[in-house]
């Protein structure tokens, strides 16, 4: 059930405690590490939308694109190492192992993905209205589920997908404006959400994340320009952000991720940036992109000497670093944060640097609570 409490952005409702369960941090910052993939390069991405961080250390990147002049799908998964020292193209592209998916042998419109502890990839497709499963090692399709419709548990343009601690599957149904929980085999367990712009209501939600500390759900409420936190039973707990392009404001947020310390990363897609909030929903910082050319990009450039000359003459290369329509953020190990820079066909990798503080290293949370105090 959705609770229509008079909650305002930045505030939290009981019973969610935005302080107690989370560690206090001395924030050092984020270090840009590397950019993965490269546009128009052999072994590059094309239309990357999302990724899953596999238990084997590989990243599985959903690439969504179509044949020129039509919507004939040419979508595929690419597997890449987080340090760019490994790359495999086209590891999963076909649903042909699923004989009942006649006419859907390729993925029409993949949106987002996740992966379980055994290495099974779960992928949503917003036109096929299904969740498809693949073996991440072999690339074989190993199952699919979901029925199209508007009722509870039915899928209508499914998008965000995430596994909870029990490895049940939460799926955002964008055009039903709902989030539903399923077993791994697709049996509907429960769900919540209704259309609207009031507290707890959703408009065309996109990404979803599970807070690993509290097992609460963060939903990218895309057309309401905010992120909302819900309990697994659908109770509204917190509203983060508001429409705009100022600090902490959002313009069509698409992806959301929560790291092991409860920090919330939001792909603020139409503002071309990624935002970071603490568990209290307070804005911390934004990322606009720091990309560098990787080896594939250098090779592509060096094969086009005219482009090298034009590049030599460019007065301002600053734009090249920046995000364009970043769609998703995912968390890796050791503080790695993967930001899917969809419009520039790359993933920008950052590393979060911070120190978790013991109780004797910081004043109690009841002190200095006014955020206007310095």
């Amino acid at each position, binding site marked *: 059930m959705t609770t229509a409490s008079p909650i305002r952005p930045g505030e939290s409702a009981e019973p969610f405690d935005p302080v107690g369960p989370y560690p206090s941090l001395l924030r050092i910052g984020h270090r840009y590490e590397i950019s993965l993939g490269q546009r*128009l390069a052999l072994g590059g991405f094309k239309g990357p939308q999302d990724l899953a961080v596999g238990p084997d250390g590989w990243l599985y990147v959903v690439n969504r694109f*179509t044949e020129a002049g039509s919507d004939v799908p040419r979508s595929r998964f690419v597997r890449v190492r987080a340090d760019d020292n490994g790359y495999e193209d086209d590891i999963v592209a076909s649903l042909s192992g699923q004989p009942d998916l006649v006419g859907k042998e390729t993925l029409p419109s993949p949106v987002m993905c996740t992966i379980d502890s055994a290495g099974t990839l779960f992928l949503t497709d917003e036109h096929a209205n299904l969740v498809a499963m693949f073996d991440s090692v072999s690339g074989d399709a190993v199952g699919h589920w979901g029925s199209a419709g508007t009722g509870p548990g039915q899928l209508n343009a499914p998008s965000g997908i995430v596994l909870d601690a029990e490895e049940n599957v939460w799926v955002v149904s964008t055009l039903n404006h709902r989030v539903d929980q399923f077993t791994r085999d697709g049996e509907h367990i429960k769900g919540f959400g209704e259309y609207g712009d009031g507290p707890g209501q959703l408009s*065309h939600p*996109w990404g979803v994340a599970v807070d690993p500390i509290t097992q609460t759900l963060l939903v990218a409420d895309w057309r309401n320009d905010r992120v909302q936190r819900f309990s697994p039973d659908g109770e509204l707990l917190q509203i983060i952000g508001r429409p705009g392009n100022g600090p902490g404001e959002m313009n069509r947020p698409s992806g959301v991720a929560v790291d092991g310390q409860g920090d919330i990363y939001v792909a603020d897609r139409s503002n071309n940036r990624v935002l970071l909030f603490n568990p209290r929903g307070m804005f911390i910082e934004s990322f606009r992109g720091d990309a560098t050319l990787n080896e594939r990009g250098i090779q592509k450039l060096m094969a086009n000497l005219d482009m090298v000359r*034009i590049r030599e*003459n*460019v007065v301002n290369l600053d734009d090249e670093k920046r995000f*364009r329509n970043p769609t998703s953020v995912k968390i890796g190990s050791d503080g790695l944060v993967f930001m899917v820079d969809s*419009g520039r066909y790359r993933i920008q990798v950052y590393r979060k640097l911070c120190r978790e503080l013991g109780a004797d290293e910081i004043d109690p949370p009841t002190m200095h609570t006014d955020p206007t105090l310095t």
Partner: protein
Amino acid sequence: MDEDRSLIAHLLRRAGFGATPSDIDAAAAAGYEATLDDLLHPERFERPAEDLLARFHSEHSDEESPRWAAIKWTYRMINSRRPLEEKMALLWHGVFATGWAKVTNGQMMQRQYEMLRDNGLGNFRTLLQKLSRDPAMIYWLDQQSNHSEAVNENYGRELLELFSMGRGNYTEDDVRACARAFTGWTMTQVLPRYPTGYWPAEFVYREEDHDNDEKTFLGETGNFNGDDVIEIIVRQPATATFVAREIYRAFVADDVDEDHVQEIADAYVRYGYELRDVMRFVFESDFFKHARFKRVKSPIEFVVGTVKLAGEHRDPHQFNLARLPALSAMMGQELLNPPTVEGWHTGREWIDSAFLVERVNFAAEKLGDSSAPGIAEIASRIRSGHTSASAADLLDACAAEAGGVNLNESTRSAILNELSVQDEIACEGPELDDAVAEALALIGASREYQFA
């Protein structure tokens, strides 16, 4: 179809891209003048929300391909409540023909389209001023290579020949002076497309690269800059006739009546080059109201009108929107990529055997789908109030609902011979839906349906 509905349907075909039967009902109830006034004032209505379109086509996150710009434009043509601004953009896109083939930057093409849409109903002077500052046009006609010490005449020549006055109304010296007036009108250097994609350029005026010497242009002498030249161009009688002829061919008829063109040219002068007033004059004229089905639909008009009638792609989530501009290209009109700076050859030249097959197949597919919302709506309207209908009545009703397609007797007879239903058909059963779809598919394949 009664005269009022027929006239409204004509207006909605020409000032827009056609209409559903219920759209025609609503416009007929409002009346011709009120409908026209709304068409001439697009600012009264919201544009379709494009965030949802981008949401469900996230494969175009780079926003850089001309395909994406063409897809978005096609969607607007289908769904905009401001169809005349899209029609004006299409007119000026055909006149100021700029192509992706050379520009190779989808964002710059998108911005040019937006400029044409936003100024297409404005003052022609402003339109030429904006055009001369448009980065896609600058690159298309080599304005970035037009320097005070090395004049490139490409844009100056086409501005006179193809964009305003037409051949025979200026001299080679005028071309030279025009080009000199536009020296220093260039654009910013952009990042190279490899390896991270395209960036749009911006207009920039470089005073140090402008020829500040005196120029004589069309009999007037001065230290002219680009805007001064445009000011002289827009008041030329040849420009008035040029603009009038382009409007006539786009909105009235393929076969030009020079007397009517002159009436439009007079309006252009009378209203101080204000295109909204010129278009009101055209749409209120008797020669417009009588020019029904005198224009061959261009491919994109054909595709969009058919999709509107079928009621498809109202939802940005519907799959295969990209197919529509691709089909238009296969019929001879690739949006944002006209074949040359002369634009497309229109009228009967839209039709050849290959293009016609594409048109017929597309119309038959879309209008023959009884499950399509628009076709179901037509069946429902025909069913309403009737228990049964003859094949002839059914065909006539379908032709009327399809916007008053004016089938001649030969076509009508041929379609009646082809229909599965030869006798009375009960209106309450599902067989009516199939019969309606069949009749509409045959109407869509007719010669008459090719005309707007």
